[in-house]
């Protein structure tokens, strides 16, 4: 796979941005159906990076958060990569009451931490699953997922694995920022594609836009 074939043209970025917009819109609607919440959306951004630059890029993006909680899930099909849903510390606690109102007042240590982790996992499962699922559907693919991995309240440094991909490889990062209106919680969703799915992705983007020529 030569570097030339991995260059991402402006039009391909625009298509990816629009697909991410559609996919995250679907994910937000699914979450809003499950829990009584309104998700304020923003314009997604697309970055093409060397995999070695990834941890630094992700840490810079979430620099406003002192501690974070993160839900990480890998997906694979022809569309292949990792999803990172990042919240500031405390977001899980703020969301518990939405998913499980009966437990809102339960502050027994241990139980509460488990509940917080489960809440983040559930929110992550819905947002990542619906977003990646819609993206792959629009691109004509079907993906499978690893079980979500949740890390609650930790320093951002080191949370994004350095050895996720070969450092020399290219990665496409699709980022969207959102806000849960009722809880004033901000979060980020990053989808990072692997090097070996980029050639397929370029073809899939061309096939997608061909319907609109």
């Amino acid at each position, binding site marked *: 796979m030569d570097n030339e074939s991995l260059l991402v043209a402006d*039009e391909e970025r*625009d*298509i990816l*941005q*629009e697909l991410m*917009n*559609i*996919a*995250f*819109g*679907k994910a*937000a*609607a699914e979450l*809003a*159906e499950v829990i009584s919440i*309104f*998700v304020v*959306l*923003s*314009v997604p951004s697309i970055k093409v990076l060397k995999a070695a630059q990834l941890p630094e890029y992700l840490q810079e993006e979430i620099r406003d958060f002192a501690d974070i909680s993160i839900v990480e899930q890998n997906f694979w099909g022809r569309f292949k990569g990792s999803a990172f849903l990042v919240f500031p510390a405390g977001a899980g606690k703020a969301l518990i009451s939405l998913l499980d109102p009966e437990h809102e007042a339960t502050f027994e240590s241990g139980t509460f931490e488990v509940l917080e982790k489960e809440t983040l996992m559930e929110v992550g499962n819905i947002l990542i699953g619906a977003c990646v699922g819609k993206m792959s559907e*629009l691109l004509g693919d079907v993906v499978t997922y690893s079980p979500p991995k949740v890390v609650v309240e930790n320093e951002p440094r080191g949370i994004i694995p350095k050895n996720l991909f070969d450092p020399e490889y290219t990665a496409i990062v699709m980022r969207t920022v959102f806000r849960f209106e009722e809880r004033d919680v901000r979060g980020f969703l990053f989808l990072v594609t692997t090097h070996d799915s980029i050639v397929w992705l370029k073809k899939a983007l061309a096939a997608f*836009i061909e319907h*609109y*020529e």
Partner: protein
Amino acid sequence: MAMKILLVDDSPISRKMLKSCFPKDATFEFHEAGDGLDGCEKFREIGPDITFLDLTMPVMDGVQALEHMKKHCRDAVIIVATADIQTGSIEKVMGLGAFMVLKKPPTKESVRSALLKVGEYREAHHG
């Protein structure tokens, strides 16, 4: 006479996709804007027959643009073309006077059906 269509969306690809879904057996005069503010200016300038308005945009979002447009022309037909399909968003824009919500990605069928609805509405209200 060609129907004047204003497409307001920050994504050039999204505008291209929407434009390509219009029926080829009719004539349309397309105008485009890349954000809500630009959209409001073009709206006042050209007086479109139908405006297709995205919600998530920089500078001025679609909700604000919708309010401005409806204030300027109460009878304006504004179709919100969006990926934000949360019930809360749909209720909000319908409450502000949007004609309907067109879910992204658009298709030839969804655009044709939206144009038919506008035609029926105009027939019923203006003869």
